[in-house]
């Protein structure tokens, strides 16, 4: 079964762009929550991650703060 991927981003952060490009190149579907326009998603992200930096990535229920490529790859296996 394909992993459920959810990513909290803003349109201008590099690591968000890198992460989205990474998923796109792998042909993986993901849900992008743009916290610059979605206030509720922003509050949810801070609450879940305990910090305010983007991106925050969820692969199934595992949380990754920042675009840690190695960890993302490991969780996708």
């Amino acid at each position: 079964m394909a992993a459920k991927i959810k990513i909290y981003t803003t349109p201008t952060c590099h690591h968000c762009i890198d992460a989205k490009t990474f998923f796109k190149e792998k042909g993986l579907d993901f849900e992008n929550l743009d916290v610059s326009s979605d206030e509720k998603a922003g509050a949810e992200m801070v609450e879940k991650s305990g910090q305010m930096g983007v991106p925050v990535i969820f692969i199934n229920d595992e949380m990754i703060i920042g675009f840690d490529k190695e960890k993302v790859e490991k969780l996708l296996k």
Partner: protein
Amino acid sequence: MVEKKKVYDVVIVGGGPAAISSAIYLARRNLCVLMVYGVLGGQASTTADIENYVGFKFITGEEFTKRLNEHLKEYDISCQKEIVKIVKAKGSLFSVEGEENNYIGKAVIISSGARQRKLGVPGEAEFLNKGVAYCATCDAPLFRNKEVAIIGGGNSALEAAIQLESYSKKIYLVIRGKELKGEAVLINKVKGFDNVEVVPSASIKEIKGSKFVEKIIVEQEGSSKELDVQGVFVEIGYIPNSEIIEIKKNERNEIMISNKNETSIKGVFAAGDVTEIPTKQIIVSAGEGAKAAISAADYLARLK
């Protein structure tokens, strides 16, 4: 395609406007170019609004970066996203050593840009991403209805204030001098905001909080005061990314260049914010990149 054993005519270090401009100028001379970069678009990519690049009345940094990339892709230019650690001479060639691979060039253009200077006060590292931020364009939306302090009074600080204005309840601009410094257009815009308060002749001493930032301690004309803020945006200038090469630099560690962008090492050219040019602007960097490319091409032509 990036080939590791290949000898490139020019290896460009960096991915901002200077680097991309160099790459395009060199490719148009049919030279074999590799660009090794960390962030495509460099600092321009996180600039919110660009209103002073001729030909563009208004463009966002994000859109500008897309256009740079599209222009880059028009040509046969090899691009590698990788942080460069060291650049050094290797016989008559140059070795550009990245985190994973080494690249060889007959000439090198250093346009590695600059990074933001840190405050160096207690709490800064501890509260990173917990209220302490270095990119208002990226992080402003997370400070909705919050009180924030921007440290610095130059163009970058003013731009941060413009980014935060629509989100934050209150913005303190903590500045060292008595007046804001920067473009009159930006100063006037910021002065027109109701939620901005300038804290003049002040310096930040400490960032405090528990889970997130709660307040900062500021020293103003000899007395200490507290500002209740949940966010601290650091905009106190830049440090050149010049550590990658042993070369003649000025007292600010900026690479010294001739008016043809030559450095103290023959075959190594430099352009943009990593150099001693006093004007750090996107349009200037793009122009400097073009100049460096032409000088590098001339250098290569003489080698033959």
